[in-house]
């Protein structure tokens, strides 16, 4: 055997050139498979790049600093009303969504019996799969018309709340579940109640993950258009900080409507609004990355 091996080694090393039939077909199909995968990946990345480059190029050239301090006039002017309106609506939404979502996640991970928790988790997933336009229409029927709030910041905020909740609930629950059981036992053994154990001890190593969920939900909410179409209305004036019976402008509305207008001034506003949203959302995602790296995404780094 050892005598034969040099010969066979030679055959194998040059086999590439000599081989015919099946091996070549295999090699070709392998190249083809790889090529296809690369092409698909390239298609995805280039579409994303094209979108980013378009928004950034047109955004940078059309953005003027005075857009931050002036309100919209017809199809021109600034974006101050939309910026403040977006902050106002998302602010209302997060003030409700963060406590409800975090407490809901705590409930699921620490208190719910597993059968009940599974049911709630299932419906949370269903909720996250509901098209956002449906959420908007639901709120439109229930609050805008039903309770007669009219197009308003509160109705829009509640629509966003429904969009945001699943993100916060699931990230809170999953990071709390990663916290070692020994910490809960340590806290209970000192005579802490289950709620005290969570509120004083168990949340600490999970804080990064919980913050990540809240930030991600804010990023999602900032970019939402559909749930606001039926709920916020539009206003060319700065928000008057009334919760109901007062329409509010918001950035995604500018993107959505003004890009369809046949005027360069309108396009400038739309691209600037898109650019602003892109920058803010990018910053949030960078912050999330930093949080995840710093906290290790949960409890692993501590015990």
């Amino acid at each position, binding site marked *: 055997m050892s005598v034969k091996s040099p010969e066979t080694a030679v055959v194998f090393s040059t086999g590439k050139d000599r081989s015919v039939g099946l091996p070549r077909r295999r090699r070709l199909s392998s190249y083809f498979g790889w090529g296809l995968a690369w092409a698909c990946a390239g298609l995805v990345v280039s579409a994303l790049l094209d979108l980013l480059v378009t928004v950034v190029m047109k955004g940078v050239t059309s953005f003027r600093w005075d857009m931050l301090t002036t309100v919209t006039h017809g199809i021109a002017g600034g974006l101050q009303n939309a910026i403040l309106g977006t902050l106002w609506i998302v602010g209302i939404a997060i003030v409700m969504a963060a406590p409800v979502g975090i407490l809901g996640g705590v409930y699921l991970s620490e208190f719910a019996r*597993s059968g009940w928790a599974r049911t709630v988790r299932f419906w949370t997933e269903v909720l996250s799969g509901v098209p956002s336009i449906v959420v908007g229409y639901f709120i439109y029927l229930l609050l805008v018309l039903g309770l007669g709030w009219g197009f308003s910041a509160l109705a829009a905020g509640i629509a966003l709340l429904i969009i945001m909740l699943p993100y916060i609930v699931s990230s809170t629950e999953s990071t709390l579940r990663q916290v*070692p059981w*020994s*910490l*809960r*036992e*340590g*806290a*209970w*053994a*000192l*005579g*802490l*109640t289950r709620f*005290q154990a969570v509120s*004083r*001890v168990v949340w*600490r*190593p999970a*804080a990064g993950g919980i913050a990540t969920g809240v930030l991600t939900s804010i990023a999602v909410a900032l970019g939402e258009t559909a749930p606001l179409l039926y709920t916020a209305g539009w206003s060319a004036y700065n928000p008057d900080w009334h919760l109901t019976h007062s329409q509010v402008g918001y950035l995604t509305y500018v993107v959505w409507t003004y890009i369809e207008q046949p005027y360069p001034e309108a396009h400038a506003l739309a691209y600037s609004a898109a650019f602003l949203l892109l920058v803010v959302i990018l910053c949030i995602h960078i912050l999330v990355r930093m949080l995840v790296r710093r906290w290790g995404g949960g*409890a692993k780094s*501590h*015990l």
Partner: protein
Amino acid sequence: MGKSISVAGLSAWYGDQQTLQSIDIELKANTATAVIGPSGCGKSTFVRCLNRMHETVPGARMEGRVRLEEEDLYRMHPVDVRRIVGMVFQKPNPFPTLSVFDNIALALRLSGVRRRSELAERVERSLRMAALWDEVKDRLRQPATELSGGQQQRLCIARALAVEPEVLLMDEPASALDPISTLRIEELIRDLKSRYTIVIVTHNMQQATRVADRTAFFLNGELIEFGDTSQVFEHPRDRRTEDYVCGRFG
């Protein structure tokens, strides 16, 4: 001052599996009792029934009676039981992101100690009792997770002592520690038993002879033998105890 514990007809289950079979045992006040036996014999389950930690595991249940002096622990609220019967675990579990000081002060604050001076005084007293004060008195504000493993375990002991329990349960408290740290924990146990009733689960038979006045031998969920440590190790009454302490199995 420690209190005595009397256990009558204690059985425990995890789901369908019975891990304790009708245990009767009397633990005298201010003594250290070692609980020995091979893995899976129910010794951890036994101590976890004494502070009602057993029932925190989903699917776990128990029967029988556990009394502290005259009080039935299973008629009290479990949270109150755990304040009287403290526990130290196998693996040190200091609270992460909390400082050394806050690890101890946390439970004190929740039990109503508000004044800073009183908090500081009780934290210091607990750390001194756990023989840790001299090592950490300049590092009270540092995260507890920066201490060494042995120091973390003594911190956990200090944390349990701070709420002034009557009984201290220790579930293999030194098995994750190096020999020097183990010796310090053992010294500590000998020192603490004048003030507390101590129950210590251990795999290490030398450790049992060094720290315990009394020793209980468990096998397959049953209490096989219980008596003075010297008697259990030198003149065991039961054949199975003899086999175990002579190292013939387990």
